[in-house]
């Protein structure tokens, strides 16, 4: 069984800090991390490989530094990795990204299953999985919290439907998006870390793929970002002291101030 896992690089924190003097956003330089949902996809793929044989391919579209995250997936048990990286891919929305991923996966050869996290924690769209399946013309099942079986050309899963848990089936090859409940990801061991340095790893750009550059990256993205900003939030805690009557009077004063 050949399993493809899609992973995305996300910022390690969603906290935004501002310089107290210039009020500009401070870049904290903290490392980017693999999208936490995708970590469960890697684990699930490796478990099925261990149980049934086969191989696991980790795929990502991103900047060259994403190599580090793909190598981490190799350390955790993936067998090969593909990084789709090109200036032409930059600024992609989910549609353009799914086209590029589909092209990369097509080039990587036949597969039985594609596993994705159910969404990325930075964009929160949960669109890539379904879009990628549509691009490849294969069925997909979202919000999967257990893969029950893979046999006779079908995958059976339990998923969180809108009306509660349900069992669903799809013909292979299929794409699944996974919840965090599906497993507890393992840590790599030292042999895995060593292996990750020498395992097969390729980088493909736009020229290596069968893609129309006009349908990739910012150019190929119908989504337009008009403005980004940090919502202003102010909170202050005030302890009121004194007798109950005094405290009530202070409270009244504060309420008046807020309402005025």
């Amino acid at each position, binding site marked *: 069984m050949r399993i493809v896992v899609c992973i995305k690089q996300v910022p390690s924190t969603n*906290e935004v800090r501002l*310089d107290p003097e210039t009020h500009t956003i401070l870049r904290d330089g903290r490392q980017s*991390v693999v999208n936490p949902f995708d970590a469960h996809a890697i684990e699930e793929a490796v478990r099925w490989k261990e149980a049934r044989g086969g191989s696991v391919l980790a795929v990502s579209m991103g900047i060259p530094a994403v190599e580090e995250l793909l190598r981490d997936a190799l350390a955790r048990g993936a067998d090969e990795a593909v990084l789709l990286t090109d200036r032409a891919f930059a600024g992609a929305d989910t549609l353009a990204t799914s086209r590029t991923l589909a092209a990369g996966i097509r080039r990587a050869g036949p597969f039985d299953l594609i596993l994705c996290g159910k969404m990325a924690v930075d964009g929160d769209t949960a669109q890539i999985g379904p879009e990628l399946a549509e691009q490849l013309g294969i069925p997909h099942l979202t919000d999967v919290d257990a893969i029950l079986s893979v046999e006779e050309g079908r995958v059976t899963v339990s998923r969180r439907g809108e009306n509660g848990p349900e069992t669903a089936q799809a013909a292979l090859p299929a794409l699944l998006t996974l919840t965090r409940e599906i497993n507890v990801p393992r840590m790599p*061991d030292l042999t895995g*870390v060593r292996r990750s340095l020498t395992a097969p790893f390729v980088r493909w750009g736009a020229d290596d793929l069968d893609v129309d550059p006009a349908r990739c990256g910012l150019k190929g993205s119908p989504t337009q970002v008009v403005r980004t900003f940090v919502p202003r939030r102010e909170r202050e805690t005030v302890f009121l002291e004194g007798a109950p009557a005094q405290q009530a009077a202070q409270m009244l004063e504060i309420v008046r101030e807020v309402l005025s």
Partner: protein
Amino acid sequence: MGSLLRELTGEYEAYLRDESHTVGRADWIAFPRTEEEVARVLREAWERDIPVTLQGGRTGISAGCVPHGGVVVSLSRMTRAEGCRALDDGRFSFLLQPGVVLSELGKWVESKRFDTRGWDGESLAAYGGFCRAGEFFFSPDPTERSACIGGMAACNASGARSYCYGPVRDHILSLRAVLMDGRTVALRRGERFARGLDFELPCEDGSVLRGRLPGYAMPATKNTSGYYCAPDMDLMDLFIGSDGTLAALTQVEAALLPLPAFQWCVNAYFMEEGQAIAFVKAVRDSVPKAAAIEYFDGDALNILRRQRAENPAFAALPPVPDGAAAAVCVELHDDDRASIQERLFRLGEQLTAAGGREENTQVARTAADVAALKFFRHAVPESVNMLIAQRKKLDPVITKLGTDMAVPDDRLEEVVALYRRGLAETGLQSAVWGHAGNNHLHVNILPRNGDDYRRGKALYADWARAVTGMGGAVSSEHAVGKAKADFLEIMYGPEHIAGMRALKRVFDPKGLLGQDNLFTKEGN
């Protein structure tokens, strides 16, 4: 001005105990918010001859803040950072009230969000620099993150990373303190030293304290057993680790370190304890600058196996490999990726040489994995505390008997053999874990009944004698408090305890502050 002392009624019952689970007694309690209020409370108690017990986060396990009568002075509401300083070497320090909680400080530093209200221009300018500079951290990391900075200074707390970065003492640049009679003292590191063993310390009102330090030699190990005393010492060090017996700390200036770009952590499992100890020694000798070298014995691992299988709250624990009888957790910090990777692989070679296997490791290189191994480390003491709480219901005399002793580097195998012999001879249940890099293992005796508890205490005292004989310390990070006063006497002998009493009298002639910490009040 009215008294700040309130009657200690039932609602304040929690302030009669700490994590040692011993319960004290007190008549009053006070919650000062400023140094001036601390001075008022202490002066009033001094004038009325009322004993004072200082409290912070009440997370100590040596009963240092458990009151033996009088008034409890809780500094837990002094929770503000009062200023920031830019240091010459590009680092920063913060002036903290004693009640600042470690986990809060961590959040402020990480998010670079301090409450700067009331800071002067110089502090605000330094703070602006801090916000624009790279990332920093406060290195002392006692497992209990709800400890507060005043308490940490009072017991010279450390934690796993003190193997590399040293105890809290090494990260305090200045102190403000209030004496029992209300006088205040300000000290900055490197400014005021003893002359030989004699010292003079001016108070801010112009008066001068004069005294003589006890002449004992402190062990060359991690140590928080009694007062820090050495010829020509920096007098600020007297207050750090003084167990709340000399003065109330009202401001602690904590220095930050630059955060290493890479913080990796490796759990290595071994089938035999001897292999793990050999690995610890090899890492110490050949892998420079490990941030921490922590140890877990087979009993500790079994507790984790059980918790992971039975308790949903521990289900996310990394699995312990079958047959593993010991684990060593090594933390590596580095600013260079190639360098840390090279050190990681060297660890692999060392653990193979010690008899381990690279397959039996967990390598944490991402924040999520590092957090999982931290959870693993913290789950051990937490699980043991849960176990003891269950047993205490059967026999209230039972409490955890946890040792806190360290020995010099060349005595590591000898001290492990000492513990194993004692445990085998008594048949007591135990779990051993701790800071193997510093030869500082916490042997936790897990009494099943009152008899076990008494035998465990006797064994503990035997070990205190043997460890003293090895040139070790009876308390290395938890401080002496009330729980380990007997061991302090074993370690230093009656003559030096008398010297400590004399030193205390210089600061607190009536003997009102922190009664029964370090040694019992004379005449008792």
